[in-house]
């Protein structure tokens, strides 16, 4: 039984999507494409982000996930299709442009400056100052207090905001970056594989903050290659493969198993099982993969 695919045109043109509260989407992409020279990195991608909803973008390595977020975050410009922010057509020239439009991106690796204290990282690029003219100085105490308070409200209990952020665990660092984006009034929060380098427990912590951000009314774009992380928190799922959309689903129309199967691709799994068998792979593993294949072709 195949999951019913959302009619993408319908979703964008008539605002009858049950997830939509506002007459227009917070952010939407329509047939967006991007090529680097003669290499097509992305084509015909259509998706929408709404307040208080999580849109997951799933895909394996090289599927075009990074290209997609780079377009939304203002690092690259798209060549085809249109990008709408609150119904208005936009094209971002720089990350600053996207930030000003309320789009904050939390990158997996370059979210923070490791040697700087947590509070300095939290306010980096948007520091609070007091005083006039050339004598403007940082309002250190206020920034420390706000950092502590904001992190506490996100449920992050930090030891000391004065410690270098490099001393925090990967998950905690992601959370500081998320809290920062929330505090600075982001409307759309892009999370680039926030759980990729994390352990099971840390991933759980980050997933909880994604839900916290959602409950605060942000539109979240959650990029991942792990359907087990995406399914529990997502409201919509966009699946990418080789730069193309291979499916766009509403949560009610798809199950975790189906999502996993779509991600992995049944045919490829079958091939993998065959290959493992030929290489004299461990019989248990082969059986496991075969069971998986059976599951996907159901």
């Amino acid at each position, binding site marked *: 039984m195949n999951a019913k695919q959302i009619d993408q045109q319908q979703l964008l043109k008539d605002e009858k999507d049950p997830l939509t509260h506002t007459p227009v989407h917070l952010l939407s992409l329509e047939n967006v494409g991007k090529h680097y020279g003669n290499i097509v990195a992305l084509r015909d991608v259509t998706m929408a982000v709404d307040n208080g909803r999580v849109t997951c973008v799933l895909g394996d390595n090289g599927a075009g996930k990074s290209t997609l977020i780079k377009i939304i975050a203002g690092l690259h410009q798209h060549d085809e299709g249109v990008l709408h922010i609150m119904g208005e057509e936009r094209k971002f020239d720089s990350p600053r442009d996207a930030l000003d439009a309320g789009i904050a991106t939390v990158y997996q690796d*370059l979210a923070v400056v490791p*040697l*700087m204290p947590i509070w300095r990282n939290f306010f980096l*690029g948007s*520091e609070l100052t007091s005083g006039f003219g050339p004598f403007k*100085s940082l309002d250190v105490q206020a920034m420390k207090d706000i950092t502590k308070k904001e992190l506490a409200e996100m449920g992050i209990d930090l030891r*000391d905001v004065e410690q*270098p952020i490099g*001393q925090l665990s990967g998950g905690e660092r992601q959370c500081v970056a998320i809290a920062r984006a929330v505090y600075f009034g982001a409307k759309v929060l892009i999370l680039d594989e926030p759980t990729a380098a994390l352990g099971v427990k840390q991933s759980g912590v980050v997933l909880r903050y994604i839900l916290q951000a959602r409950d605060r009314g942000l539109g979240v774009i959650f990029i991942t290659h792990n359907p087990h992380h995406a399914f529990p928190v997502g409201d919509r799922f966009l699946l990418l493969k080789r730069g193309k959309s291979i499916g766009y689903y509403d949560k009610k129309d798809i199950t975790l198993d189906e999502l996993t199967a779509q991600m992995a691709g049944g045919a490829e799994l079958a091939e993998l099982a065959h290959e493992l068998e030929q290489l004299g792979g461990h019989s248990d593993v082969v059986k496991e993969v075969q069971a998986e294949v059976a599951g996907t072709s159901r």
Partner: protein
Amino acid sequence: MTQTLIRPPSVDERVAVRNPLQNLLGRPEVGALVGAVVLFVFFALVSQTFLQPNAIATVLYGSSTIGIMAVGVSLLMIGGEFDLSTGVAVISSALTASMFSWYFSTNVWVGVILALVVSVAIGFVNGWILMKTKLPSFIVTLATFLMLTGLNLGLTRLIGGSVSSPSISNMDGFKSAQAIFASSVTIGSVDVKITVFIWIALVAVASWVLLRTKVGNWIFAVGGDSNAARAVGVPVKATKIGLFMAVGFCGWILGMHNLFAFDSVQSGEGVGNEFLYIIAAVIGGCLLTGGYGSAVGGAIGAFIFGMANKGIVYAQWNPDWFKFFLGLMLLLATIVNLIVKRRAELK
């Protein structure tokens, strides 16, 4: 519920109560401070004259001529770059001021202002090329260093017909410029050179900028991780170019001092001095890789340099040993910095 999470750090059981000594040991300049104290006590013991006020004033003067540049170089290093052209840029600045006012017979101050423009412009060009090409600052400033060295020699001979600039001591404005850049202030019975006060003022301003302004935050950020800084909206290019220009400004002050302390400048001077400034910054705890350090550290580094330089003379040793000693200090300081950085990054 969330309210209970907000609590003062002292109550948090995961934060061990640190005694003031431990806090001090976490500072970037601590290695240099310990070194400075050890060195001071050492020279005070081996030399009878080292503790006399006049000797201290001489040591401070020697330190200030390195320290003024070390302020700019430290900031630049914290910002993740370094500049090999500083030594000769100082001489370029002095030559610009003296040659221009001599050749056109203007008031000396016209040359001084022009030299400021030239110095800051050299910094701008360094930074701008660096940002445009994304080459390492080592290569870009090495090129500037060589070009300025050649220009200093070539232009001085072309215009003045000699390897040194002509004397400008009889020209209008020389006395007033000398009062600003190369006079002495008498405290008690001791003459203290004005550069010592300029140095201290520069360190104070740089510390304030670094720790208490937006720009300071940006300097740490562009040095620590320029990609992360760019992603959160820090103007990375402007910050780095500005740092090079600040180095140019420091070079101008020192260049003017060199000019007005005498009345002419040797066009071949300055080569090799860029390393002294970098050494002062590194001994003072600035990481070569950027993102960590302090202006006070650079000042302590310069003071160590000044003490070692003059102390060896007061101790009546052969100054040949000075370079060996400097190298040893540099090595030890870098090792201390490495340990500090590892401790800050890892847990």
